[in-house]
Structures are given as C-alpha cells and as structure tokens.
C-alpha cells in the first residue's frame, strides 16, 4: 500500500457527561481520511461551528480517550477506533 494515499478511517465517537448534553448526541460514526491523529478529528468537529468550536476549543478543558486509554492530540487513530470525548472526571 502506498503510504501517501489516503485510507478511510471509520471511527466510533462517543460524547460523555456534560459534552453529551451540550453537543446534543451520545455517539456518532465518522469517516476520516487517514492517516489522522486526534488533532485532525478535533479540527473536523470544530469546523461544524457552534457549539462544537467553543466546547472543543478555546479555553474549555476536555479529555480524549482512544480505545479506552487516555490520549492526546498527537495520538494516531486507527481504523475502527473508539474515540471518547468527555470533561475532566469528578467521581469518588
């Protein structure tokens, strides 16, 4: 396979707790051109405009988990990944 050619990534994106309420959905399936990172996914979501751009940008603090492990903007996404977006945790 040619690494410069885009390959489609099918992602299951989850929105949890406050983000589910403000973004109005609990999950969706997205397809990105790969290779892509968490930062690429976030850019795509912010491009939807309000409330996406304010909830996932600016000074709002949120967390990302990829396949149930904490991730950061540089984390590489693989086809079939489960990406969860949620606020800082408040259990205990």
């Amino acid at each position, binding site marked *: 396979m040619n690494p410069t050619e885009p390959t489609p990534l099918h992602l299951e994106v989850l929105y949890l*707790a*406050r983000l589910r309420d403000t973004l109005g959905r609990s999950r969706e399936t997205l397809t990105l051109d790969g290779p892509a990172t968490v930062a690429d996914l976030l850019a795509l979501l912010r491009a939807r405009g309000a409330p996406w751009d304010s909830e996932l940008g600016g000074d709002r603090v949120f967390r990302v*988990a990829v396949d149930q492990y*904490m991730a950061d903007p540089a984390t590489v996404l693989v086809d079939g990944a489960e990406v*969860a977006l949620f606020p*800082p*945790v*408040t*259990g*205990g």
Partner: protein
Amino acid sequence: MARCHVSVQHADFDFATELGWLGDGSGAVASFIGRVRDDTRDGVPLTAMTLEHYPGMTERVLEELAQAVAARFALDGVLVLHRVGRLLPGEQIVLVVATAPHRHAALQAVDCLMDHLKSVAPFWKCEEYGAARHWVDARDSDQAALARWGAL
C-alpha cells in the same frame, strides 16, 4: 500477591460483606467511604446526584489502580467499589479498603487510591437541586493531591 476486587455497580454495598472478600488475616484494615453530601445551592437543598461512567474503561482503570497501589504499599488486599446511577443525599458512592500487616501502609494506600481515583477514573457527577441540574466541575485541588504521590 494481593487480593484485588473492583466493582462498578448500581446497588448499595455493605461494608462487612465487602470486607469478606479480603479475609481476616491482616492486622490493619483502612477504609474510606464517600457519600452524597447534604448540600445546598442558593438555598435549595440537593435533591439527588447521578453518577455516570464510561463502561469498560472504568473497570480497567480501577483494576490497574488497585494493582499498582497494592504493589506500591505491599498490601494484602484492595477493594474498590464505585456506584453509578441516581443517588440520594446520605447514600454511599464509593468504598475503598486496603488491608496490610501495618496501619501506616493501609492508611496511605487508601489516601493514594482515592487521590488517583478522583483524577483518572472516568466518572462524572451531575447534581440536581430541585428542577435544576448541573454537572460538577473538576477541582484543581484534586490534581494537586495527585501530585503528592509521584508516578504509581
């Protein structure tokens, strides 16, 4: 090898029953129970608190935490039990128990486990004051508490 038991559940828990998981061979048993506080907001008493979590990730994170803390403090056993769903004021939310040969190890383990649980386990609290609902914000003090322990 320490006995570790982790559970995420709707049902309430009974301390004595849960302690049974860890046996009675250890000299020291330290524990912490977190409960829904009798809070008020702008004069309105708290009606309920809903605990949401990320199924799958929660259990894994708690299991890893329990194992790491057990190793660090040379525990005989660790129990971590966290409820989810809608809870009323006074209801129990979380139980952490550590058993060890000596008291300081057991008490420190409970302290360390709670600090980590509060910062890394994917649970969220949503409070109801009458008709008003609001998600609880994370506190900076939880991050500061975590920094006391260094890497697990």
